[in-house]
């Protein structure tokens, strides 16, 4: 019920800043970024490869991103289980 918050972020950039996504990710300490094939200006920000996940919102990276003028919104991704059959 409490859910797990991963360090993966769904980030929406302001129009005109899409090309700067790699730069934004680099500046805020993310390992890589990928544009999503759906939605407007939606990007998947991949954390540095530490498997740790936290229950609290990812204080560091997420907050600094929120303040970046190129960033419209940030949503920390919940983690859930899926199993091979």
């Amino acid at each position, binding site marked *: 019920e409490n859910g797990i918050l*991963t360090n993966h972020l769904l980030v929406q950039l302001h129009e005109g800043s899409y090309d700067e996504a790699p730069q934004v990710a680099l500046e805020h300490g993310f390992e890589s970024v990928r544009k999503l094939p759906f939605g407007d200006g939606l990007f998947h920000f991949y954390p540095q490869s530490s498997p740790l996940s936290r229950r609290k919102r990812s204080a560091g990276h997420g907050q600094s991103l929120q303040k970046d003028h190129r960033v419209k919104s940030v949503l920390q991704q919940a983690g*859930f289980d*899926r199993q091979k059959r």
Partner: protein
Amino acid sequence: GYRDLNQVDINMSDPLFTKQWYLVNTGQADGTPGLDLNVAEAWGLGFTGKGVTIAIMDDGIDYLHPDLAANYNAEASYDFSSNDPYPYPRYTDDWFNSHGTRCAGEVSAVANNNICGVGVAYNSKVAGIRMLDQPFMTDIIEASSISHMPQVIDIYSASWGPTDDGKTVDGPRELTLQAMADGVNKGRGGKGSIYVWASGDGGSYDDCNCDGYASSMWTISINSAINDGRTALYDESCSSTLASTFSNGRKRNPEAGVATTDLYGNCTLRHSGTSAAAPEAAGVFALALEANPDLTWRDMQHLAVLTSKRNRLHDEVHQWQRNGVGLEFNHLFGYGVLDAGGMVKMAKEWKTVPERFHCVAGSIQETHKVPSEDKLVLTITTDACQGKENYVRYLEHVQAVVTVNASRRGDLNLNMTSPMGTKSILLSRRPRDDDAKVGYDKWPFMTSHSWGEDPRGTWQLEVLFQGEVPQTGTLQEWTLMIHGTQSAPYIDQIVRDYQSKLAMSKKEELEEELDEALERSLKSLLSKN
């Protein structure tokens, strides 16, 4: 469903081919001769999957494997776990990440190359989507996988899902649901992406209607039988399963397993679990797509219903039944085992089905107590939106959207009976589910058992408890959603085999349409007089 095995003269140089009983069952490992996917007939007609791409959404794919490399579609592959275009599986000492490579072999292993076995669609292209190999799944990774290159990838095969522990109720989140909707509406140039889902490994403790992916109308949920037609011990059952293919699942005999490719250029005889069901089905659908590239996602489901066979499938728990238009189904196997030969023959001359409509057939919003002993029976009488533009006359999928809570969720049972008398088990008992708080909140219990029926009339929902200890519960909502066509989907189809389900369904439709035409003309005559 019987075929003369002597007509099957396929010889392949692939060492495991003779052990691939799900392709050609000659009775290997005490199996039942003739109980297979009938690929021999489809291959014999020249259909081997050419021009079709299947994506395996899993833990990666060994695209260097000599039995896969020639059919690997690198352009359509991606690694969402690590965010790069190389979905090669991560090494572990126990080869934990062999799943995707094994599934890929069942679909697209190269034929006649002296390596491992042969794929169901051995001239198809296979793409790897690595998306299972990270600490946790996220909505973003699922949605990105399900919406990856929908104009290049035709079929997405998934052999995973929410935990099959008999107490989980889970499904796609927001982005993934939207990605599925976009896929079936815009994928493949508007014909719709084909999503194939293995229905689950939870055995009799679970119900695959509690898996939102498998029970979605937009996915073709596939269960599995073993080589003699019995159920696998890990088979779940539910009313949203459409058809079945094969997997291991009961016997110790290694030859009764599923032979396919394994990591690092190896082969295996022991691909276990229901996961093989989805790629086998994806392979059959690829053969059908080669026969008719214009098939839509709904055409594929109609073809699966019409050509699947009971064959020698045997379920000790649920009887085979006929629905209101004579289509035979089973609560675990769906409409039966896929028949590749039957499917490609029908696909070649198939005319796409008429437009699909959606009707909220009725809704009960008052709170009702679920009795501890007896059962709560509710009814909704509907005209299926007749007279409106979204009238549904011939059913495809039916959803009972239910909100219900109970002191022990696992003891809840839901059954629904259609106006034409078809009884579907929407939810069976799940003895391990002890939830007493969350319940089901607007959960869409789906059944495909009333396929082709006339939805007008009275639908009945039964809610009851089944368990050792008396329980209490309340039902807050039952909304009946019906989906299907206004005009008869089979009336214009070409019938070649007059013993086929298509012939029977077409005859039924002709009679129905005639009756209704007569009724209309009588009414107009009477009103004039």
